[in-house]
């Protein structure tokens, strides 16, 4: 066999193996981005897919109970009360420090039949508005955690 044939075959084997791994990886981990109204419009179809839903955290809705955290989000820029989605999280990774009232949050997970969204991962970005007085809250009291994706390095 000519060397170039051998190289061709080897390269084909390598590339197809990697492609196979990649396709499997995509199938297993793909997550659909949805806004809050899109999520609510999906109906039953929403229950079977991994979803990532984003919205603004409703003021005062963040509640901690031991390891579990719940909060509500509305469409970015505000929305009607009917458009609220309740997010439930009890994962092991720390929540982002940036998750607080008014922040934009992204939750990865699955919608449950009761309408709450069980998140496996939460990302958050602080609202860009200049707000609040310094030193009003002591650290540790606010139920905030940290998580990398939250930090746009800008």
């Amino acid at each position, binding site marked *: 066999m000519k*060397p*170039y044939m*051998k*190289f061709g075959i*080897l*390269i084909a084997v*390598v*590339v197809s*193996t*990697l492609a196979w*791994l*990649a396709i*499997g*990886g*995509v199938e*297993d*981990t*793909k*997550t*659909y*981005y949805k806004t809050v109204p899109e999520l609510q419009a999906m109906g039953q179809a929403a229950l079977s897919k991994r979803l*990532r839903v*984003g919205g603004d955290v409703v003021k005062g809705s963040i509640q*901690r*109970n*031991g*390891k579990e955290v719940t909060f509500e989000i509305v469409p970015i820029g505000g929305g009607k009360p009917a458009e609220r989605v309740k997010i439930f999280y009890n994962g*092991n*990774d*720390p929540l982002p*420090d*940036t998750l607080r009232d008014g922040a934009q949050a*992204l939750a*990865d997970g699955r919608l449950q039949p009761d309408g709450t969204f069980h998140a496996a991962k939460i*990302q958050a*970005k*602080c609202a860009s508005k*200049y*707000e*609040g007085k*310094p*030193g*009003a*809250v*002591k*650290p*540790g*009291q*606010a*139920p*905030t*955690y*940290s*998580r*990398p*994706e939250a*930090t*746009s*390095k*800008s």
Partner: protein
Amino acid sequence: MENLGSLALLLAFSVSIFALLASVVGGLRKNGFLLAASQRAVYGVWSLITLASALLVYALVNGDYRLQYVALHANTAMPVMYKIAAWWGGQEGSLLFWSWILATYSFVVVLTNRKPYRPMMPWVTAILMATQVFFLILNCFVVPPFNVWAIGKGIINLPDGQGLNPLLQYWTMAIHPPMLYLGYVGFVVPFAFAVGSLIARMPGDEWIHTTRRWTLVTWLFQTIGITLGMGWAYSVLGWGGYWGWDPVENASLLPWITATAFLHSVMMQEKKGMMKIWNIVLVSGTFFLCIFGTMLTRSGLVQSVHAFAVSSIGNYFATFIAIGIAGTVWLILDRMEYLKTESHLESVVSRESSFLFNNLFLLASCFAVLWGTLFPVISEAVNGEKISVDAPFFNRVNIPIGLFLLFLTGVGPLVAWRRSTVDSLKRNFLWPAIAMLGLMVGLYGAGVRNGYALMSFGLCLFVGATILSEFYKGTVAIAAKESMSFINAFVELTHRNTRRYGGYIVHMGIVLMFIGFTGAAFNRDATVEVQMGKTFNIGRYELKITELKDGENDNYAWMKAAVDISVGGEKIGTLEPERRLYKVSRQGTSEVAIRRRLNEDLYLNFAAMAQQGQGAIIQAYVFPLVSWIWVGFWVVLIGTLICLVPSKIKYSYARTQVVATGVAAKPEQHAQA
């Protein structure tokens, strides 16, 4: 002052356009006067951008909060170091920083190369200045750093700024962006020389010899930058990882991968005259990935990946990249005759082949990472639905690639050029292979069942053994011949061929890093709510909260939990994880406490106060072997620096074949091979 800064940038913009035109026209007409003018203009651009940058830094340090940029990224209570770091802490400033580094590089290139490489220099200058013009367009017209708040028109005067994002107020984060930028921007130089030599129709590899040091140094900066980012994520973000396959991280990794491929495949061109087109493609690809990385980080395309705010700056980058790629492709096609290969592949088991597969795997990894990062954008374009892929996707593709590359790290440098005999393979690899199998069987017997981890540890031993035996054989030979002590002979060996032995040391560093990566297969974690005085366990550690304290300073308020650590009833230390609340930005951060040891790290995060009573929610992790990543990094750093030292003896390429023809034991041949 803001007027002076803006004016300096506008002038720099005009002068850089002049430098671009003067070098192109001067190059075409061989007009020495115009060329000299363009070189002076390059110095002028640097001076003007330096002035603008100095003004911005001055405003940041002195708290001129009339400026939007200063008000949004600095405040009075911040330490001076972070005030300066705020220069690259935000959009406008970091793009100015990009421009400034580019101008500095251009200055140095023109200053050091204007005499020795006359024929291609006008084109090199032109490429550098074209890039400079692009960034100055951004600095002057798209994201100007000297905007003033419209005080009096609805905005009250600001006595103090918002401060730098607290997560960025950490020493590695202060120097991580400059390192990464030095690496990103630096690749414009090899690219400019490659394209310059093509435009000037210069046959041969002169651009490669000229830029070898640049390439290594910028690669080193990229490596330092990426590792600092990993170290920052590990010690600041509190989730215990160092790599999350975040788009921003991927953006920094992509050019590093192609740069690594380039550093290897360039040897094929130097020694065999092969892969000439490929090398131009790689160096251009790296440059455009650097620009693309900046775009991903800076444009908000990343945020749009996360469904966050979008910025228009991405269009400018996309245009620049599109024009650049189109120009480069046209140039390569047009100058194909200067890029003819001088020899051909002969055998699958040969040095050439190992370089080929090294490049194939690196590029496959680069493509997979790029694909995964852009998947939401691609899927939205194809079927209108934004779909993202997650860390498991990246791991599934990149772990096998990484292991195969690790394997090549051991095999590649010892396989002969052209073709290898079974005999030489046996001599070089028999014992390392036996050791590898022995270790894998031993670990399996000890209860390790993770296939990838077994392979990785085995390969680490295999590669480490081949490298050490190379050093050992060479050192013993020199020690015997020159009657030197073992240590002197070791230094002599390395000094005789710094590229080869420096390269081995870099490979050794990579092996150590892989040991650290593999440790992740055995991570443990626990999240617990504990009352004061109570204990909980993770791994072999027994943890007990003994005290909760708090306090504050100008910049932030803090709260610490003192946690006593015992193993087997014996106290071995105290860790104090901390939570901070930065006053101005009202953002909380957690300062994790880590007990770093070479065998494993104990990592505590103070997540929050307990809901009831006096206690805390603590996240505890045990990370086996993770310190080896940082140890490996230092070894890579030392190895790269050794590569930069000139070799004592000019080696000749033909000697490399000695390994294959079976007289490898002879000392000086080995040392020079």
